[in-house]
């Protein structure tokens, strides 16, 4: 059974036709004062936080590099390139849902509904699954960069650029255009790394990041960190510092340690620095940005006088400019035992590199002590001949042990299963 596109979805996508790489960093509703920037060399002033700040403007190869804008429309179901995705032997990949422009983070309701956030759209989608019939709905519109979604006990939590809100009893309101209720908004409004990932920890608190407001900038004490709050928005605290931008985190099911991806800076080098996989072992650790990259390279601008040994090093390097985003420990039982409690990471893929890297789901194998044994590609094919045909953003465990992957390039969600080809319609 194919998936059905929600009618209203397509229309709004037209609004994005003019989206360019730079426009992805459009002015926020109420911008903060511009942070100090190192050496912005372009003749025309770039907006604060622009990813092009720091681009060597007399280097032709560098001038070719810029963030890769997604197509403005979601790809039609029959054009989604699911057939070009490659998985290890025994795994199957199918299209789970399509027609969700800029599909980003995912959350799951035990009623079978998958909620999908977006970054460049103003919507949160819901993929319902009733008697094997999947349907895409627009749950909420009019949001600002609703990238983060999390679900707990009937309530959907949504993280926008500068506020976190909730929809109680969301499963009963899928087509009722519910109005989110804001629970927390003590957040800066910077566009650069302002979008949020949201997850609920084993302590029943909401975790989210406040990214650094630029490619490589010094900033105040309210940026570059992971925070957590109670489910009612109270009790905010900072739990980790020195984070450039994380767009994915999860807890090790064995010991509840928090692992998170962090995206390294641009414009340092084609092959440097690597994105990181970090692990928090105690509250208040500093992971080094913007002073130290990938655990061993003091920054070209801000690293002077600093030692990487003063910061917590990553547990794994995820590749240069790879854009490691959503990640989950695999806790299901459908995949072979070797995958159990290992980490899947969506690598959105590079833009700040002549020969692109990433555009895959990486498998991070762990040792028993939680350190990393290896990082290897698991599902590939989103990157073809140095061009993206899709870009994975988030991964999510399903109750049957299959895994969903969101793709903001095609506006689609895929399902990965193992063994005899199973339909998603159980």
């Amino acid at each position, binding site marked *: 059974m194919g998936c059905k596109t929600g009618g209203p979805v397509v229309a709004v996508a037209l609004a994005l036709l003019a989206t360019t790489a730079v426009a992805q960093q459009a002015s926020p509703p109420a911008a903060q004062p511009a942070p100090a920037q*190192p*050496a912005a*060399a372009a003749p025309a002033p770039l907006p604060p936080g622009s990813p092009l700040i720091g681009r*060597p403007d007399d*280097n*032709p*190869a*560098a001038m*070719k*590099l810029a963030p890769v804008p997604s197509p403005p429309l979601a790809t039609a179901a029959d054009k989604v390139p699911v057939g070009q995705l490659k998985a290890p032997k025994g795994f199957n990949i199918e299209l789970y849902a399509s027609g969700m422009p800029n599909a980003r983070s995912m959350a799951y309701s035990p009623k079978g509904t998958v909620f999908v956030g977006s970054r460049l759209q103003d919507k949160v989608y819901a993929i319902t699954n009733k008697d094997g019939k999947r349907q895409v709905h627009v749950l909420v519109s009019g949001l600002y960069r609703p990238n983060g979604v999390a679900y707990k006990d009937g309530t959907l939590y949504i993280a926008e650029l500068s506020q976190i809100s909730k929809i109680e009893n969301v499963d009963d309101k899928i087509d009722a255009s519910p109005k989110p209720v804001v629970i927390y908004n003590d957040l800066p409004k910077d566009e650069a790394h302002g979008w949020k990932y949201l997850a609920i920890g084993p302590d029943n608190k909401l975790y989210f990041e406040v990214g650094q407001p630029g490619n490589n900038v010094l900033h105040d004490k309210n940026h570059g960190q992971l925070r957590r709050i109670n489910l009612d928005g109270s009790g905010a605290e900072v739990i980790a510092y020195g984070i450039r931008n994380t767009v994915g985190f999860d807890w090790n099911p064995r010991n509840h340690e928090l692992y998170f991806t962090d995206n390294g800076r641009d*414009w*340092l*080098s*084609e*092959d*440097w620095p690597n994105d990181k996989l970090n692990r928090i072992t105690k509250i208040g650790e500093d992971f080094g940005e913007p002073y130290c990259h990938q655990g*061993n*390279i*003091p*920054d*070209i*601008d*801000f*690293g*002077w*006088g*600093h*030692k*990487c040994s003063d910061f917590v090093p990553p547990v794994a390097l995820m590749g240069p400019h790879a854009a490691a985003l959503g990640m989950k420990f695999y806790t299901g039982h459908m995949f072979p035992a070797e995958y159990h409690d290992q980490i899947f990471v969506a690598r959105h893929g590079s833009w700040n590199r*002549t*020969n692109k890297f990433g555009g895959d789901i990486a498998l991070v194998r762990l040792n028993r002590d939680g350190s990393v044994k290896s990082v290897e590609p698991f599902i590939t094919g989103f990157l073809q001949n140095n061009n993206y045909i899709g870009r994975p953003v988030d991964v999510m465990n399903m109750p049957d042990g299959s895994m969903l992957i969101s793709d903001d390039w095609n506006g689609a969600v895929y399902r990965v299963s193992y063994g005899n080809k199973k339909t998603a319609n159980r």
Partner: protein
Amino acid sequence: MRIRLFGLAASVNLAAIAFGLWCAFLPAAAQAPAPPGATPPPPTPNMPTSAEAQKLHGVPPPPFAAPADKLPLAKLKLPPGFKVEVYASGVTNARSLRIGDKGTVFVGNLVRDKVYAIVDRNGKREVKVMASGLDRPNGLAFKNGTLYIAEGTRISKLENIEDNLDNPPKPVVIYSDFPNHVSHGWKFLALGPDDRLYVNVGAPCNICMPPPENAQLRSIALDGSDAKVVARGIRQVVGMDFHPDSKVLYFTENQRDWLSEDAPQDKLNRLLHPGQDNFGFPYCDGGDIEDPIFGWGHSCSEFTKPIAQLGPHSAPLGMRFYTGHMFPAKYRGAIFLARHGSWNKTHKIGGDIYVVYLNKDGTVKAQEPFMTGFLQNNDYIGRPVDVQPMKDGSLLVSDDYDGAVYRITYGEGSAAH
């Protein structure tokens, strides 16, 4: 002019002192006098403005050589069984070392204008000036009685020099087709197994797109004719030597400043394909980092990789293969090299003599410090520049900070005399 051993260096004038002060405010890249007509160093693109970065600058040598009794000999540390002694002091800004057929030790200058000879007559050593008024006479080579001197923009020779130590002739220029620039304008000179002179033409900057005549190694016939470019993409070389068996050229290469406290790594290279190898400057730093300014569109895999990384900003300079018999067998065929020490790093590294052990195929097996102690509590008390094995298997080390030459020996009764 004669300079007495253990005495103060002669002819230290006000200009030299003024120069020393001037140096204190310049990066190491510019630690040489600006000769007339030399292109000044270009400003470093995107030089960091942080207060911590502003604290870093070149470490100028003191304007005077240290008196013999003030040399930090007791602070220098060696593996068990080795000893170090002062071979000569009062050799202001002692740089490259070469030994003549009759045992004379020649010493070049970078921030001074002289070439010295340390003459050993019946155990009595004397430091004599062989030439003065020169422009950064850093590079020396010796062949068949002739001393070759590489200055900033020319190579000259002193024939039959060891027969005329008390009355040296004027240098005769044999080659002068060099660009004239302040940054990395000084030269290292080596005699190849093909009886040609090998010389570097450095990059005229910290990091820039070099003119075509820069950032390369050349070889030149002994009469100054037939210059060839043998290697490209080289930022600055201040040390090279030829493998005693394979005759392959090995050289140290200093990498750019202001990239990071801990990157890029300085390099040890080897030239397997003369005339073809490109070592990556300015596209690839340290062999593994595409440059933030010039590296876009390039991959380090396009270039000849270093065979060893020698530490960030460590400034590996002079190097020699050790073929003597005085030291234990494990050192035979190994490379000794002088790491002058970093300036572009808050916590300095280097300031030591390193030993690099090779595999049979000429690749690097291991590297470790050999003589340490020039760096104490993040300050230099000396800075090694060049190494030169003597016929008896002992090893000379020059120190441009204290203006001294040390001699390292192994075993009993190993004192010089």
